[in-house]
């Protein structure tokens, strides 16, 4: 079918495909929409209707239907004819009739909707079509990650993912607003970056596309260590960049000379209409030096790489973040994240810690007929660990301040920032886990009583 009718139309347009494969504009309602707004007072019953194995209930044979299609009968007309020729249609209840029509519409009518490839739409499409590409990342889990990582304009998140670029693309969609100075760093554990092909599907603006850079985590950690040792990383990065540029120029010169010697016969290719660059750039040494600067730090961390052990990855990556930066780690399994939560709490590396499991189930919502879809299949959404990172040196300061206060015998309770954060986290955890957690433990408000004592 020709896609010419799509050009110049807004995203979200709906089309019907006729027998010749031509797109015709159609109403926006999806195919097989339920039309009955209210349940009718219907005294008919389906209990007398039985399956007829020889399909004798339908007056039209396959050949008749094929002939009608060949004659160019539209899908809705064909469904109408099927209903008229069905021996049992009139005996069915109104609901059953509606169901029958919907099923036949789905079979004989093709509707096409041109959707904008937003992060949610892409995630949904991949989840149902090709989930291995995005590592079974479900769209509500993706939303949770973006929410807890506090992504917005001017943010500078570190994204370590193995979901085909879905998380990095979703982050770029939020961070890369026109005129914003945010930057998404897609960190990778190995020497080469994981596939980020989904970024190319997103129709990102130039600003949003250019705000994504890839960088090896080892380079970031190395640069951070050198900054901490007091080395001037900027100078060495500038020197490195000059050397890279010189090498590139030399290679280009050699290529030009070779082409001139051979007599260049190749014609320069013309770009197709609407061509736009879609490549994701690797971070230059100076950008890496800038990102790893201790005074800079990433504003948040998103970890969505099941191949990496969450605890080890968090231990390595969190020091690259700014103090109190939120982080969100996604994993298809709960145990690695539970271990990470326990370790982070024990080592006092984070506050506000929570491990959540997103849950999704499709429902039919109609007056008097609202219920979960019987054949629902949402798959597994994985688990999300969230929290705020606290640098160890802040803990040391807190302890020292607490010790001094105790020595002075003051009971003023002047809490440090970190402690206030911890208190806030406890309040939040109490509130959110709330009654469910208390019911599980069966000890009611026991923890609070203990605290009062």
């Amino acid at each position, binding site marked *: *079918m020709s896609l010419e009718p799509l*050009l110049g139309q807004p995203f979200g347009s709906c089309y019907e495909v006729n027998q010749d494969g031509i797109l015709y504009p159609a109403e926006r309602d999806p195919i097989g929409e339920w039309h009955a707004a209210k349940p009718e007072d219907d005294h008919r019953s389906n209990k007398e209707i039985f399956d007829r194995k020889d399909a004798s209930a339908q007056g039209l044979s396959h050949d008749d239907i094929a002939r009608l299609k060949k004659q160019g009968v539209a899908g809705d007309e064909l469904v109408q004819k099927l209903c008229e020729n069905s021996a049992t249609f009139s005996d069915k209840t109104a609901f059953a009739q509606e169901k029958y029509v919907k099923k036949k519409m789905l079979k004989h009518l*093709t509707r096409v909707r041109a959707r904008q490839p937003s992060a949610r739409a892409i995630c949904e499409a991949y989840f*149902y079509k090709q989930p291995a590409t995005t590592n079974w990342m479900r769209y509500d889990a993706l939303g949770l990650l973006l929410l807890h990582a506090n992504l917005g304009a001017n943010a500078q998140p570190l994204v370590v993912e193995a979901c085909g670029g879905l998380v990095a693309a979703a982050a770029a969609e939020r961070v890369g607003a026109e005129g914003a100075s945010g930057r998404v760093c897609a960190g990778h554990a190995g020497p080469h970056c994981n596939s980020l092909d989904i970024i190319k599907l997103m129709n990102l603006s130039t600003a949003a596309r250019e705000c994504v850079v890839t960088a090896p985590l080892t380079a970031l950690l190395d640069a951070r260590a050198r900054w901490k040792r007091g080395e001037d990383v900027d100078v060495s990065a500038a020197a490195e960049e000059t050397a890279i540029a010189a090498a590139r120029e030399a290679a280009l010169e050699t290529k030009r000379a070779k082409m001139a010697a051979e007599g260049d016969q190749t014609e320069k290719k013309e770009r197709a209409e609407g061509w736009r660059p879609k490549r994701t750039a690797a971070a230059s040494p100076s950008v890496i030096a800038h990102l790893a600067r201790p005074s800079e730090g990433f504003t948040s961390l998103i970890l969505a790489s099941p191949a990496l052990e969450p605890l080890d990855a968090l231990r390595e990556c969190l020091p690259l973040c700014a103090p109190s930066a939120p982080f969100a780690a996604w994993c298809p399994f709960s145990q690695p994240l539970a271990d990470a939560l326990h370790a982070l709490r024990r080592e006092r590396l984070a506050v506000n810690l929570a491990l959540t*499991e997103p849950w999704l189930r499709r*429902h039919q919502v109609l007056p008097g007929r609202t219920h979960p879809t019987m054949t629902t*299949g949402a798959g597994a959404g994985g688990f999300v660990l969230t929290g705020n990172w606290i640098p160890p040196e802040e803990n040391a300061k807190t302890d020292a301040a607490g010790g001094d206060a105790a020595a002075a015998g003051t009971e003023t309770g002047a809490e440090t920032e970190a402690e206030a954060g911890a208190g806030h986290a406890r309040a939040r*955890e*109490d509130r959110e886990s709330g009654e469910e*957690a208390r019911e599980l433990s069966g000890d009611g408000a026991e923890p609070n009583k203990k605290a009062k004592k």
Partner: protein
Amino acid sequence: MAPGDVVLLEMNGEKWAFVNLKRGQCVPARSPRRHVFSGNRESGARRVAAAAAKREAFPLVARVSFDDDATFHAPLSHSTDARLFSTRFVAPHASCQPNAEPRASASTAR
């Protein structure tokens, strides 16, 4: 939509294709959706019995967790449908509440 845009084509709410739009472009039109359940009760029972026999003949020793969860069929999509989102707190459990354990903060340093 303009040439160069990527479009997510959704057919009958359940088939997806990413298309990089160009002028004069054609894509294969897919056939409309088949019946959700094409058969009667007898054929359904036959399929179930055949699957059971196959499982007995080729028992699965170890299953990958994702393969086990073979529920990724394409859903029907209607505007009257709703997806209910929810989150379940797995941790911290009540027994792990910060108030339940000794407070590891400045106040305990006394």
